[in-house]
């Protein structure tokens, strides 16, 4: 679950919300008369990607592991145990110098947007599992009360002035009602799993890739991809959301040996749904970004990316109004088994990118 500023002014279809779409990405947009998909239509958006579902590709997985150094680790012990590399930490690590916090990343202070996100998070879980929301605001607070990590946030909500609390409640009810009206019932035989944890440890230690997805659907893959992953966010679309879901696709690919067939971000504020059909290109792109983040987090990386770099991985740059659309997709294709290379792609590698371990010539 990610949360961004609920007071944002983005509207579906604005230039900003069009950013962050990757290969195969589809978004419900704000054309005149546009209505968010609901029920079976939303389910179809998740299930029918328009592409053939990926099949197990051991060579691709081996190349991804090699690129990320998963079979080597850091090569030295890390005090306090392996570095846990999550989507959020990657995003923080890849923030350019211009957007970096001067004193490094900090724990976010509670805000109405953060509280709304936490409440919608548990309400989504409740809806998936029970199919109903009785009194969403009360249910949400109730659900947070059994999570020790949420005590500070609960205390903060309790201390809100009546007007602020009413405002939070109204937004939670609005988004919960949207969820109730639009989110499709999932057949139990699809094994819907909320807050699914995905882990890929480096064999020799040092770090592990960890993702926790809001919803995973589908039985383990046998002959072709059968799992879809969904992130739910109460905030506005951001480039980081696309990067997050592709990171999740990467971790699932490494974990199970088969990519998910789709990764999606569902925006409860608007009912938008971004869906990426997962291809080898998607996971390879995610691996390149992940490698760049690993260099910062656990290795002797190049340090902060320059804000001047046109191919910066910085999500804040990609969201900025003056920033050109991310050029990451113009990066040279990676020679990997099963990955088609785009002819004529001659753009230089991203700033600071390191050569891939075991990279083979195209």
């Amino acid at each position, binding site marked *: 679950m990610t949360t961004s500023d609920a007071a944002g002014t983005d509207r579906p279809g604005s230039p900003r919300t069009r950013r962050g779409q990757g290969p195969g990405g589809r978004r419900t947009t704000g054309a005149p008369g546009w209505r968010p998909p609901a029920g079976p239509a939303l389910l179809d958006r998740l299930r029918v990607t328009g592409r053939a579902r990926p099949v197990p590709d051991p060579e691709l997985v081996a190349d991804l592991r090699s690129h990320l150094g998963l079979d080597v680790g850091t090569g030295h012990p890390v005090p306090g*145990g392996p570095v846990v590399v999550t989507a959020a930490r990657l995003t923080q690590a890849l923030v350019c110098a211009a957007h970096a916090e001067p004193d490094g990343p900090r724990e976010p202070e509670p805000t109405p947007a953060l509280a709304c996100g936490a409440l919608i998070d*548990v*309400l989504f*879980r*409740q809806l*998936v*599992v*029970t199919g109903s929301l*009785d*009194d969403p605001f*009360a*249910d*949400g*607070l*109730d*659900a*947070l*009360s*059994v*999570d*020790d990590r949420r005590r500070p946030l609960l205390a903060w909500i309790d201390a809100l002035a009546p007007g602020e609390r009413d405002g939070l409640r109204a937004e939670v009810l609005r988004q919960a009602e949207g969820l109730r009206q639009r989110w499709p019932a*999932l057949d*139990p*035989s699809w*094994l*819907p*799993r*909320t*807050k*699914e*944890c*995905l*882990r*890929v*440890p480096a064999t020799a230690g040092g770090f*592990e890739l960890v993702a926790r997805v809001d919803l995973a659907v589908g*039985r*383990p893959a046998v002959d072709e991809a059968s799992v879809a992953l969904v992130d739910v966010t109460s905030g506005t679309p951001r480039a980081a959301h696309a990067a997050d879901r592709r990171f999740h696709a990467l971790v699932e690919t490494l*974990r*199970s*040996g088969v990519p998910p067939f789709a990764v999606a971000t569902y925006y409860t504020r608007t009912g938008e749904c971004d869906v990426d059909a997962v291809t080898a290109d998607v996971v390879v792109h995610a691996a390149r970004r992940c490698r760049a983040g690993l260099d910062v987090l656990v290795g002797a990386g190049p340090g902060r990316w320059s804000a001047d770099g046109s191919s910066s991985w910085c999500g804040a740059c990609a969201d900025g109004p003056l920033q050109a659309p991310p050029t990451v997709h113009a990066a040279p294709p990676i020679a990997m088994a099963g990955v088609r290379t785009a002819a004529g792609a001659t753009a230089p590698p991203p700033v600071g990118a390191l050569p891939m371990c075991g990279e083979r010539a195209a």
Partner: protein
Amino acid sequence: MSPLATLVESPTTVEDPVPAGVHGGMTGVRDRLVDGVAAAVGDLATGALVEVSLPLLRRAGSRPETLGQPEDPFSWKPAFARRSLGLAAVGACAGGRFRAPAEAVGPLADHAVDEWRRTGWRTFHWEPWFAGLGAGARAMVLAEATTWASHLWASADWGALGARARIGGADDLWTCPGPRTVRLKGRCEARVAPPAGGSGPVLVSVSCGNPSDRWEEELGYLALVAALRSPDQPVPVRVAGLWPDAGMRRTVDVDDALLSASAERVVGAVALVARARVTAGSDPV
């Protein structure tokens, strides 16, 4: 056939009996365990209790510095209820009552609470806590159990194993004889009986996180406790481990060498616990 199905299928059949001597050293393993444990806890006060479990073995291996720290007082959380409810859900699905855990957890929890209210009997222990929760918190319990159970359910064709598979069940407990009580607790998620004429059962264990470097000894611990607890029963022939977070499935065949290694691991962990207690002054001589 699902991946785990190949793991739990007994490696020994009527045509392929357990080789003589494979488990013949169990008596020796037990004796060495008793001696080693007695020496390890010699500095603890008479009557001291040390309870060994798989999580403790893992903690002793990865974070021994935490062994002397006081435990947080217990209070129920959704994560603590997920295993018992999840196992009930998988068992009910295997029995054909439900199609999948997502369908089973709600009715099973409601039924348990109803039974507790009617009879005072607690199937899962958490019924009074669960009954006092609001709808949102209850949903979190069901969600945790559903996710946990779905992995176990998808790991094998439990329905096809029929009566051979026992989902859940009581923990294996064995108390090491001596003036200080050292109790070994083995908790596995399923036991699959051998086919007719086969030898010992196959145990199935589900763990969160990643397998440690010494995962074989850890799985072997479950077989060790099962063998100690029921000396008249065949020793488990195999232990299958699932680590759903990491998407890993591993098995280890049980032989005397594995049982010995697991027993040594127990002795080492007990020694660490005893040393930590003595150092912390929580259990002076």
